[in-house]
């Protein structure tokens, strides 16, 4: 079932197009044919109202019919879905890569227990680059000493909490990004 209603004025056409978009969006939870039928039924309702109205002006008639039908939610802007998809896949990559880094940090923490003289955070005197290493770095100074384990555990916990937050926002089915991805 497919129904159309024609309007002559620009304002009425604009109102009608906006209504059709909102109507289709509000019925988005329905499957294809059911959605089309629900839309058609609402359009038939508005058409009945327009035919029964005493108002002379087409736009006023439509505005009255739409007001009585009730406010429908506006669909999200067109750019939101592609942005959400981009954020979703970016979050997968970030969580995957960062997760591997956290696992490495945790592994180094464990290895520090068995090999405290070699595992550490090193810095060479000539450059300012920090190096995490399982082996003693000749000519470099180890920076953390006994603080290696608590520091790495703290960094891992903070990074883990950050990744969990990112998962909640960008990947969880209840998160905003997942909701934005839905049609």
């Amino acid at each position: 079932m497919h129904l159309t209603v024609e309007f002559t004025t620009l304002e009425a056409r604009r109102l009608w197009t906006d209504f059709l978009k909102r109507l289709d969006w509000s019925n988005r939870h329905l499957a294809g044919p059911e959605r089309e039928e629900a839309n058609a039924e609402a359009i038939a309702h508005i058409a009945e109202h327009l035919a029964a109205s005493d108002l002379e002006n087409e736009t006023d008639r439509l505005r009255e019919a739409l007001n009585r039908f009730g406010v429908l939610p506006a669909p999200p802007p067109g750019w939101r879905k592609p942005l959400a998809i981009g954020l979703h896949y970016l979050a997968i990559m970030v969580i995957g890569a960062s997760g591997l880094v956290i696992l490495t940090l945790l592994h180094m923490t464990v290895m520090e227990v068995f090999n405290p003289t070699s595992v550490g955070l090193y810095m060479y005197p000539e450059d300012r680059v920090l190096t995490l290493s399982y082996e003693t770095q000749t000519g470099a100074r180890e920076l953390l000493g006994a603080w290696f384990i608590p520091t790495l555990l703290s960094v891992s916990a903070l990074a883990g909490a950050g990744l969990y937050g990112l998962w909640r926002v960008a990947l969880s089915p209840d998160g905003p990004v997942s909701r934005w991805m839905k049609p």
Partner: protein
Amino acid sequence: MIGTEMDEILDRWSSQARKGYFEMLLLARLKAGRAYGYQIVASLKQAPGFENLAEGTVYPVLARMKKDGLVTAEWIAEDTGPPRKYYTVTDLGGRALHAMQEIWRRMDEVLLAQSTKETS
């Protein structure tokens, strides 16, 4: 208690009370004869508390009742005007209406009995 507080309380209460009543009212309207959406809305708007009913809210309820087997629906082309989707109460819908009315009547009796106790 100031007026606006009472209005808020009554608004909240009546919106809850209307939900169950609404479905019963829809079934009662359709029991009286098949009808299409616009016609149903016009009837419902005559009931107290439904004068300002947002007309679009009727359709999801009708769709749910159809899914539950309480009503059937059929599109019928008209000579003039748009085609109309007519709703008819099924046997199940008729029995459900009867049961709903019975529950409503008993609730009303209990409420009345409580009020009588208080006044005596």
